[in-house]
């Protein structure tokens, strides 16, 4: 006769059964919650923030899988995953111009425009969360803190701290020069040039060699006036890098 052990094995099995039961209860609990509040999640970005914070406290990630309870019952997943698609598309469309770097503001503006009049409210917090999820797909999605907000990177360009700091410096005017870098950051000329060259190569910066004084390095990602007029890919190819 096989005797069920009282050791660790039995405990684990018992725990698993308990978890299964608890999961069922939790699931029906969540269904009740969802029936009352599903609309809120879709409509209110404020609500979504609260919800996400709660999940973070508990230690669950409601966006991990489309097959998760949160996704299936509350529809949180679809909201963020679709947003992810829109973010990728906007970044791709503008990459030829800004090299794969865009301000969170501009991204927000364009995503809202793409969604149309009747679409739901999308906040910058929503975008940030969607972008965090996109990172797992390895396409270099990242966020660089600049001037109180963020630059969203959508290409796997290597950007170390030196590059980031120069981007932050350029944020105020949209461009930066070698002497500015030397003055503000107290760097050697070599170091400043090295960083600027890298940004040029990656297509993140454009060189204005005709500027009065010394050459200026402009960052299309930081242009605000250009958002009104789009440069087509054909036009972009004709512009000498």
């Amino acid at each position, binding site marked *: 006769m096989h005797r069920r052990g009282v*050791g*660790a*094995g*039995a*405990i*684990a*099995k018992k*725990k*698993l059964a308990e*978890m*299964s039961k*608890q*999961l069922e*209860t*939790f*699931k029906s*609990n969540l269904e009740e*919650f969802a029936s*009352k*509040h599903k609309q*809120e999640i879709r409509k*209110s970005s*404020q*609500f979504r923030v*609260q*919800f996400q914070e*709660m999940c973070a406290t*508990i*230690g*669950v*990630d*409601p966006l*991990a*899988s*489309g*097959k*998760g*309870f*949160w996704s299936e019952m509350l529809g949180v*997943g*679809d909201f963020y*995953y*679709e947003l*992810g*698609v829109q973010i*990728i*598309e906007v970044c791709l469309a503008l990459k030829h111009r800004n090299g794969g770097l865009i301000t969170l503001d501009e991204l927000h503006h364009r995503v809202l425009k793409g969604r149309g009049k009747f679409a739901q409210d999308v906040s910058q917090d929503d975008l940030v969360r969607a972008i965090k*999820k*996109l990172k*797992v*797909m*390895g*396409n*270099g999605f990242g966020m660089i803190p600049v001037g109180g907000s963020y630059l969203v990177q959508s*290409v*796997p360009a290597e950007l170390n701290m030196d590059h980031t700091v120069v981007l932050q410096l350029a944020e105020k005017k949209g461009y930066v020069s070698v002497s500015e870098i030397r003055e503000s950051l107290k760097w050697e000329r070599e170091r400043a040039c090295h960083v600027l*060259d890298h940004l040029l*190569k990656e297509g993140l910066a454009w*060189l204005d060699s005709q500027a009065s004084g010394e050459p200026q390095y402009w960052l299309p990602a930081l242009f605000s006036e250009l958002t009104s007029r789009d440069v087509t890919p054909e036009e972009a190819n004709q512009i000498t*890098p």
Partner: protein
Amino acid sequence: MDRFTWSNGLLEMNETLVIQQRGVKLYDGEDKAKLDVGIALLSTHQLIWRDLKNHECCIAIPLSQIIYFEEQAAGIGKSQDPILLNFLKERLTEELSQKRWESTPMSQPIPTATNSQTGRTRAVGIVGIERKIEERRKETEKNISEVRREIRWRETRAKEMVELSRSIANKIKDKQGDITEDETIRFKSYLLSMGIANPVTRETHGSGTHYHLQLAKQLGDILLAPLEERGGMMALTEVYCLVNRARGMELLSPEDLVNACKMFESLKQPLRLRIFDSGVMVVQLQSHSEEEMISSALDNVTDKGSLTAEEFAKLLGLSVLLSKERLLLAEKMGHLCRDDSVEGLRFYPNLFNSQA
């Protein structure tokens, strides 16, 4: 302790006293609060504590704000009757679950300014719009605080489950006990449902759940044609957009996609997930071998003398990202050389190789 507020200790009209307990000491975390021995009163709406020595000193906490409570071993010099304390605990649990405070609110809501204007004609123009916005905001806030309460209650349940899942996961990791393969798979699907990170994942085989297995099979079918059109390779973000746009509903999460793609190999699908040195992840057709890709890169570059990633992309109809990866691969294998300048990255045939 900061949820407690000063109170007059009197019960409201709709409130009922459930139980009271003498000789209760209040502790603020580890140190004793300035308050000492008193009476604890449990009503349908709040938990009140009144100082025995100084009757004026009375604080209360609404039951709706109690998220979690636990029993702690009584300190030195037990002045409390353990049986009564147990009873208090039981009644508290009961009150918390019944939530009678919800059905009988303590005070009437204060009439808002808008109510007093029901006699007026409907406001138009900017003022009307502003008012609508304000009403909606108040409505949302009300909903949010309502929902917040409901969330709090479920938070504890969820936390318990996370704890439980962790201990199970540890047992599986340490290979304690005789959990079967089936049970492990079942456990992983529980984790998936809850959105709990799985500490038992084996990187090479993804999450190992049935859901992702099915998904991998589906992807194997859906992606064949698009991959052929795009030269046998697609960036994972491209796949993500393609698949989700086609689905319209019940979209895949980025993690779902990655986990499913990781299973291609074990399912013997004609696709593979591949990660380049740069971190870029692609899905590629098995049939498009490495050698083919490299020789095609070499041929094209030799043909044109030199190529940048953008030029190569235009030639093949690929994305710039992927054409760059191919050129880098060919370089890594020693067939191409790079010319790296501010004008861009350009590749030439490696003459050291061919003219050695």
